């Protein structure tokens, strides 16, 4: 019997030795999350050593591919035909795969191809090379327009013989790589409305971090639409995290006012960022996150000098991950476009009129000056109040699967 399946190849998970079972279990769950909005719920997923195969019965391959290409850990997807591990059946599967691939080429034109076999089940009588040769010859006989080219084939028919059966495919899709979300612990992303922080969130998701996000808003000094924007960004990030993401909205207006009224103007930004980190630290403890993630990159703006970042980091004991530190703005923008956050970030509602940015922010704030400035703030009380007023939303991005 021939079945249509999507073979899922994953990379680093396989290397994780004793933890492999845990990783694979999480990976399977993430795939199910990503497929949960398909009509009829997530399809059947077969798990064998080093492989997952998603049954495509009643589904279009494309709708499954779109979703699984957003699951970290996926290295490659292959639209395959699954059969019994039997030479004739394998030939049949290879023919079907080849026919599909040929449809993309102009009719009648000669097409270069090769067969590439892997024999994982050593009980199978032919080894990989023999299988290549036998299947290659049979396909060549069946399709007169083919020409063998081992070096630069236009179609690569891959055949795998495994314990549970055989697969043949000629169409593959690259996955995002990385580690399944939830295999590296939990982090809290400081999500502004800008271009950088969603990309930083995406990169930490890619390394397997489970993520919640916090957005600071200063309504009425910033628009309420800035919050909508943060929610929209979280929905898009959610797509890469299995479909949902928790976003905490932290009202920071009272803090902003206090900083304005009590701290020297040039230290305003430094103190504000420190307070954001402190609040994030409190929130992280509440939700069980072990690290903070920010979109900071070195030297992009005045507050991101080494001196500034040092003083700001000292506001928290938590590890602060800055995944963008090695990236240029153009690279960040390119990635933001790919993730789908760039359009949202480019909406104009952020930091209306830059009310909070002083004309001359300190680029090298001295720690003692910052300590003195903060001593004038009723910081603990303000942070406690902010934490109490945090609103938490669970956002669903799955309507955006395309």
């Amino acid at each position, binding site marked *: 019997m021939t079945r249509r399946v999507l073979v899922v190849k994953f990379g680093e998970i396989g290397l994780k030795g004793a933890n492999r079972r845990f990783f694979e279990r999480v990976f399977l769950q993430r795939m199910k999350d990503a497929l949960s909005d398909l009509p009829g719920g997530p399809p059947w997923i077969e798990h064998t050593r080093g492989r997952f195969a998603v049954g495509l019965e009643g589904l279009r391959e494309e709708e499954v591919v779109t979703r699984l290409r957003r699951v970290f850990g996926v290295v490659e997807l292959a639209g395959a035909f699954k059969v019994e591990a039997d030479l004739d059946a394998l030939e049949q599967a290879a023919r079907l795969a080849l026919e599909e691939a040929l449809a993309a080429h102009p009719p009648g034109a000669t097409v270069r191809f090769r067969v590439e076999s892997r024999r994982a089940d050593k009980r199978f009588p032919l080894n990989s090379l023999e299988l290549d040769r036998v299947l290659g010859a049979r396909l060549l006989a069946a399709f007169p327009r083919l020409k063998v080219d081992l070096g630069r084939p236009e179609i690569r028919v891959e055949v795998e013989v495994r314990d549970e059966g055989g697969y043949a495919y000629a169409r593959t899709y690259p996955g995002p790589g990385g580690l399944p979300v939830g295999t590296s612990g939990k982090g809290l992303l400081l999500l502004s409305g800008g271009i950088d922080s969603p990309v930083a969130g995406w990169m930490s998701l890619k390394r397997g971090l489970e993520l919640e996000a916090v957005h600071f808003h200063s309504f*009425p*000094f910033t628009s309420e639409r800035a919050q909508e924007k943060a929610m929209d960004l979280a929905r898009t990030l959610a797509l890469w995290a299995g479909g949902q993401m928790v976003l905490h909205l932290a009202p920071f207006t009272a803090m902003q*006012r206090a900083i304005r009224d009590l701290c020297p103007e040039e230290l305003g930004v430094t103190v504000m960022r420190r307070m954001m980190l402190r609040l994030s630290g409190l929130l992280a403890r509440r939700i069980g996150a072990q690290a903070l993630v920010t979109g900071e990159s070195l030297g992009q703006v005045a507050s991101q000098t080494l001196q500034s970042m040092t003083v700001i980091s000292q506001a928290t004991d938590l590890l602060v991950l800055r995944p963008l530190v090695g990236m240029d703005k153009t690279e960040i923008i390119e990635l933001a476009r790919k993730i789908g956050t760039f359009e949202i970030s480019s909406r*104009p509602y*952020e930091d209306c009129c830059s009310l909070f940015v002083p004309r001359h922010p300190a680029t090298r704030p001295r720690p003692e000056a910052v300590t003195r400035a903060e001593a004038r703030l009723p910081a603990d009380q303000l942070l406690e109040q902010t934490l109490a007023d945090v609103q938490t939303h669970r956002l669903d991005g799955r309507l955006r699967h395309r």
Partner: protein
Amino acid sequence: MGAQRPEIYLDHAATSPPHPEVVHEVLRAMRETYGNPSSLHRKGLEAERAVGRARETLAAAIGARREEIVFTSGGTESNNLALRGALRALGHRGRHIITTAVEHPSVLEVVRDLEGDGFRVTLLAPDRDGTVRVEDLGRALAPDTVMVSMMAVNNEVGAVQPVAQAAALLGRARPTGGRPLFHVDASQALGRLPLDAAALGADLVTFSAHKLGGPKGAGGLFVRHGTGLRPLLLGGGQEGGLRSGTENVPAIAGMAVAVDLARRELPERTAVMSELRRHLIEAVFGGVPEARLNGPAACADTSDPFAGQGGAAPHIACFSFPGAPGEVVVHCLEEEGIYVSTGAACSSRKRRRSHVLEAMGLPDADVDSAIRVSLGPETSDADIDRLAEVLGRVVRDIRRFARR
């Protein structure tokens, strides 16, 4: 956040809350008059009658004949239909259009588009207070001018435009045929100032329902008998073939109720509201002494508002508070339960500045800090006092951020 306080809605020029009788009528029509006016059976007839009654009501309110009213989806569609529809019919007579720099985008964008089709457009610049001058119109007229479009009341600063005077000028311009068509966007005027389309001398007049307590999605275009016009929407031939598409019966019925209420209350309402506007200006200057008023200070003469005497509509006043970005003021007032609009939306990435205030020649600081307050029938003196008090507090607070 904070204690429960009554909302004060002062954004009637954007849209006005529907009158309870309007809501009742829309609901009733949705429940009972759900037929398609084109259907042959009784349900269709009932709906057709409802639309007919609404047409009669609107016609009576503006001194028009029933067959001179075309129902549309609102002001934007009416403006599009008036300009594009008339020029499709008469464009061969000339290629020159005159309008003003302070029109609504649904006029300005259409004429900009028509420019691409080969029309020449002259934009009349306003005075410092937002009023255009009929002398400028006279100077701009060319032998091939086919269309003049002028709003009755400017939506941002409330300036009343000399549309009656303009109509008279156009009537004298070329007495022997070929007179340019005259379109008036009266979206902000209906229900606020006495408006008689026939007496006004315009060929096309735009109306909107939701600016005067009616439902959104309904509006009208007065098309003077004999005016050539070609439809933009083709189909079943509704509205005398000028606007195909199944009539929005509930919204049209609701619009008629709103128009009728406004007509009956108009004389009293304009007097009360003119007084309110005086109070508003005084109170705002009391709360924020360094405020500036954009647009005319005094209200227009409500017995004959469009004759070129200038003045403002009684329901709109626009202020600037330099140093306090308009968008921030809007949000701060919102937090106190008071709703107004900006004259300009401002953001760090993109600036959408008010074309009206810029055309009036206001300095940037005034454009960026402009706030429009627009009154409605339910606005009270106490509302205005509260607005002034909160404004004083809020503008001071914002300036402490912006002082830097």
